[in-house]
């Protein structure tokens, strides 16, 4: 039996593809800036206790592009509309990198949309130390190579990205990069008002997860997120010897942490 299915439905005036897999309490998964990376070990592990719902960002894969959206905040507003229409709220959410930024924006729109929130190395806040990597002025391959601390020790990285990819696969990356360039080119992968609005978030238990050696979004942003969310119950966990992808770099620790948090 297939572990997951993909369905395209009409919602909020557009067509949205959602990947669905697992059993149990629904968990909304907001994927990273290069799109849904495929069904990984952590997906399978969490799918034992949760029904994973992975919307494919508009403009990527089978989801229609929504031309009138102009930035990540707009996209968060649209997702709020779409999932409200699908009657998914309140729901647990986990967001990765740019997907984490979208989740944080959605929380500022209405924290009651979520039950519990996990942010994995989210973009969206300008780090107090270091800079968010300008993924738009390097190739997808280069940005991927920066995204993990130790490629050789990260078996799932090699499985997904280590081998030679085909032009078709790179075209999918390029579609994702084009759409996110459109939405997040300036300011560079952050929203200067987000940290202020996050102060208004209450009653939403939040787990922040970061790799100390993250070369895409510097770890200093973890503390900035934690501070901004001071009016809600928030905890930050930093993994050592880990880059931007704790879900594959520290897979078992990551799975344990998320399962316990969402239990």
């Amino acid at each position: 039996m297939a572990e997951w299915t993909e369905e395209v439905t009409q919602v909020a005036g557009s067509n949205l593809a959602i990947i669905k897999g697992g059993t149990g309490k629904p968990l909304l998964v907001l994927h990273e800036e290069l799109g849904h990376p495929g069904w990984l070990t952590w997906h399978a592990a969490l799918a034992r206790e949760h029904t994973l719902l992975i919307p494919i960002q508009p403009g990527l894969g089978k989801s229609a592009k929504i031309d009138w959206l102009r930035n990540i905040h707009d996209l968060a507003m649209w997702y709020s509309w779409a999932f409200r229409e699908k009657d998914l709220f309140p729901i647990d959410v986990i967001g990765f990198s740019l997907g984490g930024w979208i989740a944080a924006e959605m929380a500022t729109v209405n924290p009651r949309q979520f039950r519990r929130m996990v942010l994995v190395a989210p973009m969206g806040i300008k780090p107090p130390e270091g800079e968010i990597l300008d993924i738009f002025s390097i190739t997808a391959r280069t940005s991927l190579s920066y995204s993990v601390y130790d490629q050789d020790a990260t078996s799932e990285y090699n499985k997904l990205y280590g081998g030679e990819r085909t032009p078709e696969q790179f075209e999918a990356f390029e579609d994702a990069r084009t759409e996110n360039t459109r939405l997040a080119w300036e300011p560079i992968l952050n929203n200067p008002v987000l940290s202020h609005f996050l102060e208004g978030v209450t009653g939403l238990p939040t787990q922040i997860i970061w790799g100390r050696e993250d070369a895409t979004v510097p770890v200093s942003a973890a503390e900035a997120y934690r501070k901004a969310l001071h009016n809600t119950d928030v905890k930050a966990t930093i993994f050592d010897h880990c880059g931007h992808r704790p879900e594959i770099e520290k897979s078992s620790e990551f799975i344990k942490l998320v399962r316990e948090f969402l239990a």
Partner: protein
Amino acid sequence: MHMMYFTERPYRDVPEEEVIRNRSFFGVPNTFYDPEVGARYYNEYIDEAIYAEELGFDAIMLNEHHGTPFCMGAVMNVEAAILARVTKKARIVLLGNPLPVLKHPLRMAEELAMIDLISKGRLVPGWVRGAGSEQIFNNANPAYNREYFNEAHDVVIAAWTRPGPFRWEGKHFNYRYINPWVLPYQKPHPPIWIPGVISPETVIWCAEHRYPYIGLGTALHSTVELWNLYQQTAAQEGYVAGPENFGYLQQIHVSDTEEKAQQEGKAALFGGGAANFSRPEWTLPPGYNSKEATRRLARQATEYGFLGITSEKLAEQRGERRDPNEPKGHTRERLMRGEVSIEEAKQKIYAQYQKAQDGLQIVIGTPKTVIPRLKLILEVLRPGVMGLFQAQGPLTTEQRMNSIRLMGQEVLPALREIAKGLGIVDPFERQPGSRQYIAGTQLDPLVDLDALKRAPKRDESVRV
């Protein structure tokens, strides 16, 4: 035929190994910039333009690039404003202002109107999308490049032609009060020409607007295809395209003897030439090209690492067999991996010299030997506008001035005679788009296909 003099105005004192090490002219650290050198070159390039006018060129063409020693025209309108005053009768042709990256089309309308007024109507403005690297340098969202281009163009034309004051509320530009107190000298506005390298979208857009299209040294065979596309679009728009709708730019270096010319002309390959203008990831930032163009390029690119795909993978996809003993990857890719030295990379670059001449990427010689090659280009393309582009690279001031002198005194008169014999008219002799197309009538041939048969096939992997 309208004859233009053009130079990229290169910063010629940059260390070549720095360009090669950086694998691109764009992005060479400006710690190598010497203001004394900059000051000297800016003034010399103005002197060159004045000299070209004295020698009989009809126009001085300028261009604009940012963040690169390849071209010093970072703010081309400043140079154009000076030329407006110090030249007497030459047209000032700007090919072109990179509208999407400049972000303030109303300001552009004002600057250009001032240049047109100071020159008493000698301005020919043109627009470009800006190279990919310029989207990065100017922080212009590449995914909106085409939209910015179209809307900025419409703002400029409106500012020049619509009685003010009026409001502009567009998708990307908003102005509450457009009422410039500077309007162009030429009415309804200066003639607009558009330069291009390969994009069919641009050719169609030009034809729809009846703007002449200037091919920037593109291979003759693909230029013919693009011009045919222009002609088809023109017919749909109800007019006949002719030589007045087209121009061509050719890189050239001329000297007194063949030996000297060949020795000096190598400068055009300095630092890798145009092939090293910028790295693939800067040339094509996400969204800069249409989805279709990206798909096409992903399968055609011979450059290393386009989109991150290696040249080996592309070759495999195309079913090409590779010699297992052949080193893997493009020279620049191997340079990045430290598998070749800068000296070896340099040798690879200069080994292309003869091929670049064979494919007419660059024409080098004495007046006697360059004229037949330029004649062939005129015969094939029949362009109403012809630009002679002084070769790039670290030539001395004397070598450049001598080349310009020989172009003006010997090449120019010969080309004018040839063009006359071919019945080529320019955009000032016949208004582009002024001849009505009557459906079903036979069109005059736009290009000479027999002459094209005599033209050499270009190796597209060689770029100068």
